[in-house]
């Protein structure tokens, strides 16, 4: 059986763990290694998508458009993708990114808000791009609900829609049920993007593939938000062992993870105390480092901050509420 298409997002989701400090050299080396190992799509953008460089999410050290161009020049076969979150990035930045060489755009909305993406899909298709929809925080809604949102993206011109487990909160059955529901409803392809907060990055992705996922995501060494992403090299090895036909070089990916990415990683994301709390409470994985920083600054336990953010049903991109909740918890502590 044919393997799902692999998209590596080390150079986008990995940007969170790097606090958006990627250099041109790192991007060039990672892109070359992934291209050589046969990964067909590489995503390169600020962690929060085009125009994500901000006080809210962290400023990029190097302009993401320069990094996109660097990656495009480094590859021979792989396509370069960018992420776009309507509300943060706009068609202006999308156009700029197309000018610098992206061939795929992944358009991400909170899983209840697909109808804010119509103008961006419209432009992507008009300009001849492959357009992929990203339903973030998919654990927050049941399978049938997600399918209805995915249908909207399909109607706007999406070529594929992903179930995105931004919080790393799904369990294998939940991941499979959501992918299956989209597969039944859509004519286009369906993808799955996993995080490892509950230690299920690979497990959930394999369940999604079994349920029919046509595209899956990973990052080398799991470099990414929260406890990190599904590791690309692990996924490549396990899908190979399951007998899928594929074009990637498993050992080449092991080398890329070990010798290209690991040396520059500031830390190895793992399901530690605070990351597990993210998966358990169902909050956006990128909140991890912000909660740790503010927790330290205001002497509040990051775990308490993350759990409270989950209770308030925060969604993708609401990093400013971390400060809000931290200040409230600090005040409560003073009084208590």
């Amino acid at each position, binding site marked *: 059986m044919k393997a799902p298409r692999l998209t590596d997002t080390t150079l986008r989701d990995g940007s969170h763990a790097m606090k958006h400090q990627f250099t041109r050299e790192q991007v060039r080396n990672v892109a070359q290694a992934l291209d050589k190992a046969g990964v067909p799509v590489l995503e390169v953008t600020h962690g929060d998508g085009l125009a994500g460089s901000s006080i809210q999410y962290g400023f990029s050290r190097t302009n993401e458009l320069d990094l996109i161009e660097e990656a495009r020049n480094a590859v021979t076969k792989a396509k370069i993708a960018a992420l776009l979150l309507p509300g943060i990035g706009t068609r202006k930045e999308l156009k700029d990114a197309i000018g610098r060489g992206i061939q795929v755009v992944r358009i991400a909305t909170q899983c209840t808000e697909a109808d804010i993406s119509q103008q961006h899909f419209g432009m992507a298709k008009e300009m001849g791009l492959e357009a992929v929809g990203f339903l973030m925080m998919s654990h927050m809604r049941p399978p049938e609900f997600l399918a209805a949102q995915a249908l909207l993206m399909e109607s706007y011109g999406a070529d594929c829609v992903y179930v995105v487990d931004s919080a790393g909160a799904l369990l294998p059955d939940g991941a499979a049920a959501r992918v299956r529901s989209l597969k039944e409803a859509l004519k286009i392809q369906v993808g799955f993007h996993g995080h490892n907060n509950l230690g299920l990055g690979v497990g959930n992705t394999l369940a999604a593939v079994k349920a029919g996922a046509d595209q899956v995501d990973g990052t080398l060494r799991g470099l990414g938000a929260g406890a990190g992403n599904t590791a690309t090299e692990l996924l490549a090895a396990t899908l190979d062992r399951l007998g899928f036909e594929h074009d990637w070089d498993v050992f080449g990916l092991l080398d890329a993870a070990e010798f290209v990415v690991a040396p520059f990683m500031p830390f190895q994301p793992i399901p530690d105390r605070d990351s597990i709390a993210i998966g358990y409470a169902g909050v956006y994985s990128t909140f991890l480092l912000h909660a740790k920083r503010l927790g330290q600054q205001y002497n509040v336990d990051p775990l308490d901050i993350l759990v409270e953010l989950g209770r308030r049903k925060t969604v993708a991109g609401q990093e*400013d509420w971390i400060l809000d909740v931290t200040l409230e918890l600090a005040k409560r502590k003073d009084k208590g």
Partner: protein
Amino acid sequence: MSTSPINKVKVAILGSGNIGSDLMFKILREPGHMELVLLSGIEPQSEGLARARALGINASHEGIKPILDDPEIRIIFDATSAHAHVRHAKLLREAGRIAIDLTPAARGPYVIPPVNLGAHIDEQNVNLITCGGQATIPLVYAVSRVVAVPYAEMVSTIASLSAGPGTRQNIDEFTFTTARGLEVIGGAKQGKAIIILNPADPPILMRNTIYVLLESEDVDRKAIVDSIEEMVTAVQAYVSGYRLKNEPVFEVRDTPDGRRTLVAMLLEVTGAGDFLPSYAGNLDIMTASARQVGEVFARNILGLGK
């Protein structure tokens, strides 16, 4: 023809949707120097028109026509759509009427009541920017009138239920327009705007976070805080649910341009609940600002000062 009290200016609302209806309730509750004489839509069966009639307000489904037919109507609030306002703006200008535009059409200058309304009091068409702009630009201005602001960023989080199809289909325009407003009126050299829709149930109140970067690490914090507090009070005079959740937070941050002082302001806007639910502070601040602009224009027409 009904006679208008001598100290009132006749006004009309174009658009019988949620925004037009909420504005109608606001003007009826607090008419000031305005007399609301007409609510005009284009849908005969509209609930908004029925509501107006039930309140004794003349209602029409003939759009701008009855407004153009009545020269006594001096001020028109347009709560239709950007597309419709482009046409309305031209017709109203030719008829010598004043248009207060709640759509994103931006045919006239942007106005924020406590910041720059006085400078545009003789315009025939003024625009209210965006809900996020009405909420956050005053606070950026409050800082920039004390110290130079090279960069300002706002993040608006609104309840999904309060974002209508117009906002959803044109979300980029919110971003562009609000960022531009932070610069042109807020006084920031560079502005950035982010909008997030949150589907939580029960719906969240409108929340805005304003970040301002200052060039120096050594700033007069007290002067900045005083200016911010003064501005919050000025906005509260016409948007009762406008409040900072915390004292402004000062931090020193590394940025691509070096070490900078960051001022973070956490703002909450609770709607007055005139017609729209109180969580929809984003819509309330638009209608409350529109009413305030109308009142200031009405006073000016009556020669009661600017």
